[in-house]
């Protein structure tokens, strides 16, 4: 029983991280029609920025997190200006390749800046662990889950209920028509990239304390987040949360009991199985024509 609870807690924690990354995918995808494969390396960058702010600038842990997320917002805006805006009118494949290029530039820059030796980040609970029915769950993991729930709810409100959210949805539906009604299209897409990158930063600072900090910290989680987003059809924000938890459960709960050596495969098997049966994803709208 305690083993089951432990694996469920891992599934929810990792699922939360996947959800934050997938949410970043979704914001950019909805506003621009492009899957940004730099998302994983942005997670890594966020983690390194908080490490740097904490160790080199000697900020408090919370300020170092906030500074990292703020810088990540700016990084996202810069990414839109220099990597996306100049090639926006090209085919979506070109743009997706460009995001992969941006990913490599970010990763190489981190390696040059902070070298490749593993680093360790503290968590605000001094590594304390909660005991629940015999299972041992770090408080940091509970923070990851709680923060994700709050952020997903906040994003839902932002996109569903505010003028900015309406602009993003209008842009996603028809960029040309959006510009004809006066929506400042470049500003909205810059903000979408900024927000998406800030979300990657949040994911980065939250997972940094749970493992050794290396330059490929965010890359693996990004692949699982991609599986989660595709699983539910890159559509609704709430659905992404469900997809991410499903992927976490496939990996950590199923993966605990069935051939544990292969647990990292299960998310992708789940994704492929769903796509084979329902190409638009479990809860997807019509996205087939875009990818």
């Amino acid at each position, binding site marked *: 029983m305690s083993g089951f609870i432990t694996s469920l807690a891992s599934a929810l924690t990792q699922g939360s991280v996947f959800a934050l990354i997938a949410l970043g995918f979704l914001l950019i995808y909805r506003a621009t029609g492009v899957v940004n494969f730099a998302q994983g390396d942005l997670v890594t960058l966020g983690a390194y920025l908080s490490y740097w702010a904490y160790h080199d600038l000697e900020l408090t842990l919370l300020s170092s997190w906030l500074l990292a997320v703020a810088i990540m917002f700016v990084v996202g805006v810069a990414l839109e200006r220099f990597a996306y805006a100049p090639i926006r009118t090209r085919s979506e494949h070109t743009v997706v390749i460009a995001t992969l290029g941006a990913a490599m530039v970010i990763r190489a820059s981190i390696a040059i800046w902070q070298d490749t030796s593993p680093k360790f980040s503290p968590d605000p609970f001094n590594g304390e662990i909660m005991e629940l029915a015999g299972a041992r769950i770090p408080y940091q993991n509970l923070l990851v889950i709680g923060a994700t729930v709050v952020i997903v709810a906040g994003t839902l409100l932002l996109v569903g209920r505010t*003028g900015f959210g*309406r*602009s993003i*949805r*209008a842009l*996603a*539906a*028809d960029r*040309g*028509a*959006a*510009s*004809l*009604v*006066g*929506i*400042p*299209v*470049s500003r909205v897409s810059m903000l979408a990239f900024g927000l998406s990158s800030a979300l990657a930063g949040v994911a980065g600072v939250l997972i940094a304390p749970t493992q050794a900090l290396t330059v490929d910290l965010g890359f693996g989680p990004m692949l699982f987040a991609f599986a989660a987003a595709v699983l539910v059809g890159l559509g609704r924000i709430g659905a992404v949360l469900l997809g991410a938890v499903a992927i976490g459960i496939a990996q950590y709960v199923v993966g605990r009991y069935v051939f544990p050596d292969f647990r990292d495969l299960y998310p992708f098997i789940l994704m492929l199985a769903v796509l084979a049966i329902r190409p638009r994803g479990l809860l997807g709208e019509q996205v087939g024509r875009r990818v």
Partner: protein
Amino acid sequence: MLRVESLTVHHGPVAAVVDLDLEVREGEAVALLGANGAGKSSTLAAISRLIPAVSGAVHLDGRPLGRRAADQVARLGLLHVPEGRRVFPTLTVHENLQVASAARRRRGGGPRATRALLDEVYDLFPMLTPLRDRPGWALSGGEAQMVAIGRALMGAPRVLLLDEPSLGLAPAVVDAVYGALARIRERVPLLLVEQDTTRALNLCDRAYVLRGGRLAMTGTAAELRDAPDLVAAYLT
């Protein structure tokens, strides 16, 4: 009000519009007529910057638009109801109207002005009131046309460009749309692209007739109504 000078537009290697001059004066409704492929829609799209022009200048209130992008042109009050309506399918009718307040951001964009304009649009198109919460993809052609026109009105247009508002609509629906346009033209100068020559000439003061991207003839609506054979010759 709106002045277009020697506008030239290409679609790839093909010249869609060549060296076109036209003008819409204060209080005027002007029709842009022509056969399919005569360059009418390209003219509107180049004026609103939806597509780039090869050369030419557009002046609004005497000021050149220069190199402004489509969204900036819309915020100056030059609003374009495009071909195919292009209502946002994932937004509701009400959200489609709300989001279009963006064009008024620097010209009285406050919530009170938005509410007043929303009331005006629902008053102009009472059919839309019960459809407020219906998503754009679920609208009929006539409903979508009304939303598209209403959306442009939310931007408090100084000049309104309309691309084939009657296309594909049942006659009764066309009547409703043209009834609304007759009310709109009391306040806003119009440049109307239309296949239905009779309707357009009944609504407008003047007309330009395009053929092969060039100006073929121009005159008052009365003059063109009196020369139906000549106009018809250019429309085929």
